[in-house]
């Protein structure tokens, strides 16, 4: 009985926070073949859900190659187990991101989320190789030379990142500037290459980070601003050490 009640309560809590309607990526023409660059379809999906009262964009098993996409208010992305958002190996494909150069960017949005047991792969090795090639030929202008993060949110509110796996970013894994009410839980970061801090927060407030794992060659966490703005619980690095500010 109590068990049932807990489930019921959980259901109510979950359903009140997530916008109701679910959409799948294929409805907007996205292909999970690992070859098709899906930026246009995923962006269309986000815009459509945003303009139609919000909802969840669900990615089922498969490799969804994409360039920079811009998340919008009341849109939740859910990566089901086995689903991976793969970042394009061309730096030009991140010109479509907003504000912060990132695979998934957002500026001035609220109630946005990325959840599920799937993962986001920054494809850093291939991307950095291509950037080096361009640089050698003197074709890499400054705006394209900025290494994209996996997630870059500016001036956003009510952000929920839960359970997802974040791998191999060319730059920082997550960057937040001027954001508040950020809930990050049970996420897994594996970022061995780039040497950037994994999570960067500038002037953020009401941040909770818990039960997460951060494997990083650079600093796991960089915080600028009021230290009271973040609560960290049960979050460890690859050696099992607890991560603090």
């Amino acid at each position, binding site marked *: 009985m109590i068990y049932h009640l807990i489930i019921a309560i959980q259901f109510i809590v979950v359903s009140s926070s997530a916008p109701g309607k679910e959409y799948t990526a294929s409805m907007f*023409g996205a292909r999970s073949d690992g*070859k*098709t660059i899906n930026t246009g*379809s995923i962006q*269309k999906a986000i815009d459509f859900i945003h303009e139609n009262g919000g909802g969840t964009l669900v990615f089922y098993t498969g490799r969804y190659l994409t*360039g920079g996409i811009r998340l919008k208010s009341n849109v939740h992305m859910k990566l089901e187990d086995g689903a991976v958002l793969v970042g394009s190996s061309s730096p030009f494909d991140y010109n*479509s991101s907003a504000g912060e150069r990132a695979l998934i960017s957002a500026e001035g949005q609220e109630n946005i989320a990325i959840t599920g047991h799937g993962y986001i792969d920054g494809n850093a090795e291939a991307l950095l190789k291509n950037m080096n090639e361009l640089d050698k030929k003197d*074709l890499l202008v400054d705006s394209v030379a900025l290494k994209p993060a996996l997630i870059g949110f500016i001036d956003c509110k009510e952000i929920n990142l839960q359970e997802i796996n974040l791998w191999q970013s060319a730059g920082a894994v997550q960057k937040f500037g001027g954001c508040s009410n950020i809930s990050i839980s049970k996420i897994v970061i594996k970022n061995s290459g780039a040497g950037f801090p994994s999570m960067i927060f500038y002037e953020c407030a009401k941040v909770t980070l818990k039960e997460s794992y951060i494997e990083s060659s650079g600093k796991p966490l960089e915080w600028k601003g009021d230290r009271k703005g973040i609560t960290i619980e049960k979050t460890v690095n690859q050696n099992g050490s607890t991560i603090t500010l």
Partner: protein
Amino acid sequence: MKILLLAIALFFSHFAISKNYFIKDFGALGDGITLNSQIIQGAIDFVAARGGGRLIFQPGSYLTGSIYLKSNVIIQLDSGAVLMGSNNPFDYVKDAYIGWMSMIFALKQDNVGIVGKGTVDGRGAATANNMTAFIHNKIYNDRLFLDRPSEFNRPQNLYFRECKNVTVTGITLKNPASWNQTYDQCENVYVDSIRVDSKNYWNNDGIDIVDSRDVIIKNSFFDAADDVICFKSQEPNKMCENVVVENCVGRSSANGLKFGTGSRGGFRNFKVKNLVFYDTYRSAITFAAVDGAIVENIVVDGVKATNVGNAIYLRVGDRNSRGKKSTMRDVTIRNLHAEIPAGKPDAGYPLEGPIENLPRNISPAGIAGLPNLKITNVVLENITIVYPGGSNPNYARRGTTAAELDSIPEMPAAYPEFSQFRELPSWGIYLRHVDSLKLINIKLIANATEYRPAIVAHDVHNLQIYKLEIIEPDAKKKKQVVLHRSLIAKIK
């Protein structure tokens, strides 16, 4: 002379841009799989920022969605290089300013172009069908008029808007999802030696010139589902003017050389030479002013049209004029030879033209104004039109009594089309509401006996006929020229 100098200036202008860049260096892959839009855009931006140059595509199939050309950047498609349109409609931008989708846009840029022996292949049918599915699934909003996405919700291959010094030469343009290549409010447009294969979806035109000036189109081949060489005017205070079209060959399931139907501002100072049309469903030459346009000072010299549904159709109407008065004057068409078949000229081609306005026997060439909007000062000279003849009055009949001629509706607001009046009372030429018309050395041939006369002139004033030859088997002493409320000034 002015136009010749313009041609020379345009010819040399694109050689001024000399620095070469290779798209492969920017990471583009010609594998036909990788979407290169952002890489190509990045490269264009880079070349533009460095002062311009040629962006060269070597052989390969470069998949792309929308890209924007920038000033002083010329795209060079080498032989074997294909800019291949994505089949995902969401890879295309519907430009907010222009209101259309396109693979390649140029908006308010100067000294731009696409040159070389390569190909732009929109692969548009699949894109349009994908869009239709998105519309049905309520992902995209469109009224699906005629059960297809609106023309502006399907990508064209090229859309140049408000650009100066545009050069498109040598390339092949294939299979857009909408119109094909539009030059809208541009100045100094030079199109030479291009090939168009545009018949994979509805409204696939050859080339559309809208409200542009100083335009040259020459030495090109067009095979199009819709109009071949089409001039439009969408703005009441703008027009197409100072235009040369020469040495072009075309095939269409619509019209060959067309003005309209968008005809708000006008069409002025055209010199057209040496056109060949074949297997074309509607008119070889048709000029329409139905939305308030002025058509003025047009010379067409040298047209060979074989297996074409209609030779000439000039029309002034009153469709969407909003207070303006459509005008057509000073139009000369000379040295035209046309052969009209009994059957359907475009039979067997993809997206055949719709069979409309039945029942009617073979329609004549037509010049039709309105009672208060007469077409004035037209010269038809050295014209031969061969008709199949053999009309059947039991199938469709329009007699030549005053009452019957008066009963032909004016249809001011109808879509201007040679067949719009259904059965007409003549088999060779039908004239209505024309002021000052010279017919010089006209030969009309019917290969089988007709129930109709060759020519009907209704409300035609100052009609001058110099040498008219009419050949029809068993015509006996049939009166071949019927005048109704008309005045012949001269017959020689």
